[in-house]
């Protein structure tokens, strides 16, 4: 197992190196003049040249690439072009905010969706099963920004049950923060409940029909033991993989939802940095999201290995 983990970590480092290289290439494809962006359109060219010299944007590309590798290794990406302050001061708070929304969204979505998927699978072809499948299909076809706006207006503005904006005031307590995050988290539930529930249902049906489940039932195990030890361990493996990939997307892809609830997360930060050609911030944020993806898939693989004896066997061979 240790060897497997070490190998996966080594592969992640290679992937990270490739990601940094790709980020560097993308950033340098854009025509840009950071000095002009900072000094404004009417500043004298000497001022612009001076700023560019200080930023090192006129240095040879190899030097700039070396600096980006060093920055990644030390997690020190310098100052944002746009905001003239250290990238970390902007990135880490945004990452923290995104993490709160992602965790709360998952806490609401995953147990509910897995329970619904298992419930539907065990009552296959009944009206309950059909209802869950149809509801899930319908809700997951609604883009999150549509469900977000609808929830915001109905539950936030009209009923006044939860805050219409997602960012709680500084120093707010845990429950207050949940109150603020509730509506965007519910929007995530609407969209991803159906997806995860259907995935779980399919896996559970397959596991329920498997020989090992029949054997477990025939040898007299209680239903709960059959479900816990044999069915779910096998049924949930695809679900775990899907959730792991979705977490990476949640961190960087909820741009519309963040905009609707005026929540300054990582998604909008990346979009804004790309639009404004704020390359230190953009590079750092994309690399952090890449690392989150890698960590999530690594953790998912380990969880699957723990759940599935055959996978553990393959890990041992590796």
């Amino acid at each position, binding site marked *: 197992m240790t060897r497997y983990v070490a190998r996966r970590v080594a592969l992640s480092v290679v992937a990270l190196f490739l990601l940094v290289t790709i980020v560097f290439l993308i950033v340098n494809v854009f*025509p840009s003049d950071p000095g002009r962006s900072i000094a*404004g*359109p*009417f500043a004298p060219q000497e001022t612009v040249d001076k700023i560019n010299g200080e930023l090192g944007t006129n240095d040879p590309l190899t030097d700039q690439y070396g600096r980006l590798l060093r920055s990644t290794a030390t997690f020190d990406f310098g100052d944002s072009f746009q905001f*003239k302050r250290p990238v970390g001061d902007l990135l880490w708070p945004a990452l923290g905010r995104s993490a709160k929304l992602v965790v709360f969204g998952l806490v609401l979505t995953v147990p509910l969706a897995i329970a619904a998927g298992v419930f539907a699978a065990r009552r296959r072809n009944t009206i309950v099963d059909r209802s869950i499948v149809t509801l899930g299909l319908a809700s997951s076809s609604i883009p999150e920004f549509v469900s977000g706006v609808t929830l915001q207006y109905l539950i936030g503005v009209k009923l006044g049950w939860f805050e*219409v904006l997602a960012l709680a005031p500084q120093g707010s307590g845990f429950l207050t923060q949940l109150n603020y995050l509730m509506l965007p988290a519910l929007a995530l539930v609407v969209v991803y409940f159906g997806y995860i529930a259907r995935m779980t249902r399919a896996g559970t049906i397959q596991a329920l029909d498997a020989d090992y489940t029949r054997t477990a039932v025939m040898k007299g195990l209680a239903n709960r033991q059959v479900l816990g030890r044999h069915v779910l361990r096998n049924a949930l493996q695809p679900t775990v993989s899907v959730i792991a990939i979705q977490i990476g997307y949640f961190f960087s892809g909820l741009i519309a939802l963040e905009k609707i609830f005026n929540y*300054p997360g990582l998604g909008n930060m990346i979009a804004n940095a790309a639009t404004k050609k704020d390359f230190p911030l953009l590079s750092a944020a994309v690399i952090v999201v890449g690392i989150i993806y890698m960590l999530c898939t690594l953790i998912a693989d380990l969880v699957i290995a723990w759940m599935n004896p055959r996978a553990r066997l393959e890990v041992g061979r590796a």
Partner: protein
Amino acid sequence: MDWKRLDRVRREVGPVHLDLVESYAQGKLSRRNFVRRGAIIGLSAPFIGSVIKAIGRDEDASTARALGNIPARRTAGQAGGTIKIAYQTPAAALDPVAMQDLGSYGIIAQCFEFLIGLGEDGELAPGLAESWEPNEDGSVWTFQLRQGVTWQADGSPFTSADVAATMDRLVEAGNAALKGVIAAGAVDTSDPNVAVFNLESPNGSLPYLVSLFNAQGAITPVDFEVGTTLDASPNGTGPWKLTSFDPATGATFERNADWWGGQTPLDGQEAQFFSDLGTMVTAIQGNSVDAIVQFSVIGGDALLNSPDFTVLELEATTHRQIWMGCSEGQFVDKAVRQALALTFDREQMVSTLFQGHGVIANDHIIAPFAPFFNDSVPQRTRDVEQARALLAEAGFEDGLQAILHAVDLQEIPELAQLIQAGARDAGIELEIALESGDTFYGTQWCPPEGDPPCAGAAELGIVDYGHRPFPDVFLNAAFSTGGVWNSSQYSNPEFDAAFKEYQASIGVEAQTGAAGTLETILNEDVPAGVPFFYNYFSGHSTRFQGVRVSALGQMFVEKASQV
């Protein structure tokens, strides 16, 4: 007419001021324009009041004020509390010299102040300067500075050295309003309480150029280093102290106990940053914020009729210019430019895009409500037949095809469609290229190698201009030869000379006459079509009172309180 009082007034003033008083007394000026002009040349509010009383002309009171900017009669508000204000997210660091966006303007104006500020009637009013006056030809302006003003950072006194250093920094940065008006070292600081501006040439609008309407003109301390940001080094002389700032979320301010204006009723204010108008409106509806610095009719119409929301509507010079390349391309012949301008259905634009909250314009940028507007230039109206004839005269008998570049912002996409539909009737086929802000401003309007900076790479485009109560910036930057925003690359020595004459004019007749020349030239040459000016919308919850706005992204709450 109270002749005795009027004579007393006449004896108190110099020639420039006297000219204005006489013009008003002879009925050449409305009361509103008298107030505006008086504010520009430094007449005090009591003096203006005494002239109006002496002349005693019965006028509709509504003409004497900007639309809605006079706060409703205030009740005794509750002291204390905080107001939450929705701002557009600042586009960059809070650099008072280099900032270029309304989000930054609004935040900077809470801490830093201007020589001339905003009065309760929406006109110019004393700020860090208590009074000002020009010499006879307007080439030297003297500002008496307010005493007892201190800097928040170290408690040192505000002096003329701060004013001089600020102006030098603006000159070095190429400030669009002051370019060509003053040079480095223009401000004489021999008296710390008096700032004497020695101009490059006579200029009747200088007070506007150093007022809050030139947002970068905020006075910064003498030792301020270019590039310093407000959040990195909080300072200012204003009523609010910045206590926290996060470029992604917002800022908080607390009362400046040492402010020269006394104690603010509110304890503090909280700025929340938004990038989307819809979210701002929802935040108001959901009581998550108390005020909104700016909104548009499209997208913000839910607020216009809300009983819980006080709308502040300002008559503004916010407008769009449809620039047409004058140096190369299909629009070089002014007949073609006139033809396109003749296809505009201006009334339809104002009614469709702004629900009537605006006025039609005449392809020049002196608004009909400007104090020196000259109404002698006939209004251009839609005339498709004449447009076709002009096109034929220019060699485009079969019409022409062009790409209309536009930024995807506010009502501009809809405006592009209206222009396209109107032009088609005259045989001008326009293809709309709708672009993101960075693509549009970075390549079409201000091409990377542009000289001047915003020389307009495209031959035809729509660019947005924010409110300025005086047209100097527009005239200087967008139409003067080599102007920094001259996207049509327009160059007309006659216009340049007329602009200089306009700048130098101070008296009522001279200013109106010079404005008439400029209007005629721009209307004739049409380097840019200007179909309308539209009103600026802002507002706040009815739980608050005493909020004022400038139509330039600045909201002032130092006199605001909870109802």
